[in-house]
């Protein structure tokens, strides 16, 4: 079945550690790719997006993601996490003119 897979269910890091969250999708054809974040008690909000062009995209709060077409991947990275990055992170794929599908999410806990 076509899907969006996030490799890690829960990641625990210390402040200043580097972060990489994996995301793979199984849809063929052209897709738009997104990372959404949900901070505790808040609604889902966009972290970054990729439509076309440079496969390395930068988002808010120092996050970036790299689209690797051959691997159907869109991994999220941050060189140095902060306690305030504690949240749940969702990868999402939108097949153009079609619906937005989400991964199961990765809960990130950053220890101060």
């Amino acid at each position, binding site marked *: 079945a076509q899907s*969006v897979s996030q490799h890690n269910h829960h990641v625990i890091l210390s402040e200043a550690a580097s972060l990489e969250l994996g995301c793979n999708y199984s849809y063929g054809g052209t897709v738009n790719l997104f990372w959404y974040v949900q901070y505790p008690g808040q*609604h889902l909000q966009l972290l970054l997006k990729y439509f076309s062009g440079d496969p390395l995209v930068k988002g808010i709060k120092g996050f970036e993601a790299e689209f690797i077409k051959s691997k159907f991947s869109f991994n999220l990275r941050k060189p140095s996490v902060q306690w305030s990055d504690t949240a749940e992170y969702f990868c999402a794929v*939108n097949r153009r003119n079609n619906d937005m*599908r*989400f991964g199961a999410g990765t809960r990130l806990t950053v220890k101060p």
Partner: protein
Amino acid sequence: EAGVAQSPRYKIIEKRQSVAFWCNPISGHATLYWYQQILGQGPKLLIQFQNNGVVDDSQLPKDRFSAERLKGVDSTLKIQPAKLEDSAVYLCASSPGSAGELFFGEGSRLTVL
């Protein structure tokens, strides 16, 4: 600009009862989505509207769930009768088009006892 508005924020009902959730999208957004988010899982699309027409309702349990978007603006999602497994957060989102960024509301948390 005002965000996506949803109500109620919380609802507790007993199984077999009915419930309705309301969503008012961002002004001018043509596309409206209802998602179901069960604890520990990612949002699952229930239905997508483009203006007041349904684009995708393939994952909507139509025997108990219904949704409408009259006049292409606000929308209502209804569950009748509710089951225990319907306990979840129901998220409404809107988008200017069908392939871009979604803007989410705070969600409506449903507990079915």
